[in-house]
């Protein structure tokens, strides 16, 4: 893993003036920011501020009313959702979107779908090409299982696993595609303090060892502030602050809308 | 002597055509009676009748079971045009007699290609011709509207009818097909009426016949109403449709009408009722299907009375091809007659008019054979 060296310079992701409306609800209102390659960007904001909506725009599940999104120099709004993974963007979901009847291992293998090449006919005939691909996926998935310590549950159906484990499988699934950009939607929800510490080091490991850029949505301030290089704050679909974690944490507008005083 | 002969049969005891099931039941009970009476010339029968749900592949499977597993001696009275079509080639290839098919399709009478298959009732094409000729003679200037079932059965009638009209086929102003899966034929009737038809040729199966008769009355439409034989059952069609609504309908008929008061003293009908009392008390006595099944039973009895000691399939087939007798359930003048080249046992019919209670024959006994043959 880690075959792509982090290259500084141009942002890996540029979000420019993205607006999304649902009927009368304005979920995103002209949001713009850049994400530098090799950084962790924390995206925070009150409930309903539009964070998940932004993720859904990035992975093309929603189409913004206006604005543009450039990823690795590609105008991704011109592409359908299923092509995004191939461009190198991976994600997890806020409410765990697992393939519930399948085993953990298969969930992870599906994560590698975008890296494989096969068509139904050659798969059905089990051509040597497909067998080789299968073997490669098997190895890659096994590696990830080991990295994320999912070995003991790898053959179990994902549905009955504790929520926290499911979230970890989602992370493994996203990593299986070897993304250059990883979108994490509230990965710490449901984890206790200890586990969050591990998650923080895992995220750093993902950034530093694997060279993956991370966009992190999270309500756990300890985590956000400890791993983010930059923090962007949304409120009512609008960006209200952007900057280094410390600066954002002191920003009165952020405290007023999001953090509260007791934090 | 003392032999038991296995007879195979398929019937729609379930599914959309299950109303015909009583034909099979009647024959089965009649065979029970024959056996109880000591058989026909000492020969007893075993009636193996399977349900095919009116589905052709099922008919094939059940027939194969009858032939290859039950090893029946011959097949008799299997019902339905699409269903029996599925097995016609098979039974001929296996050289198993398939006698008295319960369907009036014209294809059961082709000894040159299918020497092991024989029909029973007048074929639908011939009956269609009878209606065509009647229209030509009765209302040569009329406008005909046709309602027909969109299958072989319906199309045979239409073809016979058109053939008889010949160059007057332009009298037909509207032809409306319906599918057995249609819930009602109301809209077809409305169209026929709107097309200005004053003659209504009603080629349907019982349920749709009843719907059509009632809808015609409901619309206040008063055409010359011709109803095909299959649907002329007083009990199963006209009563539900309303006897008043059915008044003056014209049909063609070869069998006696069980509801006809004149049949009260008819010898055959009395015998039938006695048989039903003893063996099949649940039977619907106002239904022509019961008479139909009873007629098949009598025909079987006659066939075996005619046979000698040789009960082989060939012998049975050649006996079936040499029938000539008066069957009690048939109207006067209508007989059963076959020959090596004529595999249509019943070919003549009477025109009948419904008088509000029963069918009254009029005119002469008619042959539906094609003109000049």
């Amino acid at each position, binding site marked *: 893993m880690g075959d792509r060296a982090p290259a500084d310079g141009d942002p890996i992701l540029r979000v420019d003036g993205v607006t999304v409306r649902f009927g009368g609800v304005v979920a995103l209102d002209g949001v713009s920011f850049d994400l530098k390659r090799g950084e962790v960007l924390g995206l925070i904001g009150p409930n309903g501020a539009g964070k998940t909506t932004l993720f859904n725009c990035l992975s093309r599940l929603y189409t913004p009313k206006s604005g543009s999104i450039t990823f690795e120099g590609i105008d991704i709004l011109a592409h359908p959702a299923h092509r*995004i993974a191939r461009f190198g963007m991976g994600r997890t979901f806020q409410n765990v979107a697992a*393939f519930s009847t399948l085993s953990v291992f298969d969930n992870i293998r599906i994560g590698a*779908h975008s890296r494989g090449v096969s068509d139904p006919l050659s798969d*059905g005939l089990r051509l040597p090409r497909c067998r080789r691909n299968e073997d490669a996926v098997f190895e890659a998935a096994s590696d990830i299982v080991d990295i994320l310590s999912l*070995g003991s549950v790898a*053959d179990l159906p994902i549905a009955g696993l504790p929520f926290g484990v499911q979230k970890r499988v989602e992370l493994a699934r996203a990593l299986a595609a070897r993304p250059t950009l990883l979108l994490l939607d509230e990965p710490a929800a449901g984890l206790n303090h200890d586990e969050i510490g591990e998650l923080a080091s*895992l995220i750093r490991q993902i950034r530093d060892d694997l060279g993956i850029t991370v966009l992190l949505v999270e309500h756990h301030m300890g985590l956000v502030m400890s791993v983010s290089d930059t923090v962007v704050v949304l409120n009512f679909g609008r960006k209200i602050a952007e900057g280094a974690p410390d600066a954002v944490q002191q920003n009165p507008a952020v405290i007023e809308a999001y953090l509260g005083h007791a934090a | 002597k003392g032999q038991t002969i296995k007879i195979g049969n398929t019937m729609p005891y379930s599914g959309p055509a299950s109303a015909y099931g009583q034909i099979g039941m009647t024959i089965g009970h009649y065979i029970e009676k024959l056996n109880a009476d000591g058989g026909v010339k000492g020969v007893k029968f075993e009636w193996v009748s399977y349900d095919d749900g009116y589905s*052709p592949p099922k008919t094939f499977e059940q027939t194969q079971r009858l032939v290859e597993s039950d090893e029946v001696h011959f097949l008799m009275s299997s019902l339905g045009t699409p269903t029996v079509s599925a097995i016609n080639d098979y039974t001929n290839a296996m050289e198993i007699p398939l006698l008295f098919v319960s369907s009036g399709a014209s294809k059961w009478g082709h000894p040159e290609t299918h020497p092991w298959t024989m029909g029973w009732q007048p074929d639908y094409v011939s009956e269609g011709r009878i209606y065509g000729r009647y229209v030509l003679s009765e209302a040569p200037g009329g406008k005909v509207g046709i309602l027909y079932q969109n299958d072989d059965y319906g199309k045979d009638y239409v073809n016979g009818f058109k053939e008889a009209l010949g160059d007057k086929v332009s009298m037909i102003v509207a032809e409306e097909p319906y599918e057995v899966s249609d819930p009602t034929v109301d809209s077809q009737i409305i169209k026929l009426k709107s097309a200005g038809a004053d003659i209504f040729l009603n080629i349907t199966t019982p349920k749709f016949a009843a719907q059509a008769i009632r809808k015609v009355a409901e619309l206040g439409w008063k055409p010359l109403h011709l109803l095909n034989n299959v649907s002329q059952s007083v009990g199963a069609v006209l009563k539900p449709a309303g006897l008043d609504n059915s008044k003056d309908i014209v049909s063609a008929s070869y069998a006696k009408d069980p509801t006809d008061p004149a049949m009260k003293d008819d010898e055959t009908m009395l015998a039938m009722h006695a048989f039903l009392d003893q063996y099949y008390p649940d039977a619907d006595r106002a239904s022509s299907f019961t008479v139909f099944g009873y007629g098949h039973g009598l025909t079987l009895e006659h066939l075996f009375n005619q046979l000698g000691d040789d009960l082989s399939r060939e012998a049975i087939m050649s006996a079936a091809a040499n029938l000539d007798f008066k069957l009690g359930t048939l109207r006067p003048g209508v007989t059963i007659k076959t020959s090596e080249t004529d595999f249509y046992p019943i070919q003549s019919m009477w025109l009948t008019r419904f008088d509000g209670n029963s069918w009254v024959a009029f005119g002469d006994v008619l042959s539906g054979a094609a003109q000049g043959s």
Partner: protein
Amino acid sequence: MDQTTSRLTPETAAASTSATRRARARRRSLGGMAATLVVLAVFVALPFLLSNFGVSTLTKVLIYSLAILGLNLLTGINGQFSLGHGAFFAIGAYTTAILMVHFGVPYPLTLPVAAVVTFAIGVAFGLPALRLENIYLALATFALAVATPQILKLSPLEAWTGGVQGLQYYAMKPKVPLGLPLSANQYMYFFVLLVCVLVYWFAHNLVTSRTGRAFMAIRDNPIAARSMGVDVSRYKATCFGISAMIAGLAGSLTAIYLPFVAPDSFTFTLSIALFVGMVVGGVGWLPGAIFGGLFVVYAPNVAQEVATKGLAGAVYGLILILLIYLAPQGIGGLVRSSLRRLRHLNDKGPASGH
């Protein structure tokens, strides 16, 4: 494995490495292969033990199983509800019949043509189906099933389809090729068996491959699948095509085994039967197709033996309900849960003590 991440592990049996996982996967697939061979051996032996009629009934079982397999691929594996697979079955059958009757094509050569035709039609139907979910798709496919006989009857097509009468070509029934010491029924049986084995092999490969995982991902969570890079529309349409193709091949085999096609052979009850067979066999479990085929062919016969004629339907219905009571997930559910139980015991054996 480093210390930090290992803390995330739930404390169960010792974690396995890639090598042990691979070994276990191989063991399982060997087990599956052995089971398959046993079943195959039984199916090869049976025609020599059964009566002539028994052989032809078993041929029918195979044909239905094949169609059920096709349906299962679509509904069980890919999650697209179909109540109309009888339509593709019909198209396959008619393709074969028309090729044999009108073009004199030898029967084995009609199979690939039928496959291509039904695949194309399946894809064509799968495209609008992309927009329909669950019940809506069920209705659309059911509508297709209901409309099939009427379309086959269409008078403009009559020159080819034989209209309401359909096509009969008993004379073209396949003969036993020279030298084989088999009865006609046995030969037909083995021909059908060969096709079934090949298709099963194909379907099994498919399901255990990248494509198959994509199919299942779509079934479980289409949105997540899309985000993983699965082209949902393409896979769904393709799955529809393959599924229709398999059902079409089954139809094609019917038209060879029973040299007669007619619109009324393909009413919606056929589609319903296939559906019931799939449920009985086990939704999403390919070997279940055999059980489904057995059920669909034999259960009505059993019902008829048990009941008087009119009540056979009720008895069949009761048998079906009883079966669902005993095996809510079909036979496949029973087999899988007993396998799981076995494995659970196995896993517990050596590595207990936590």
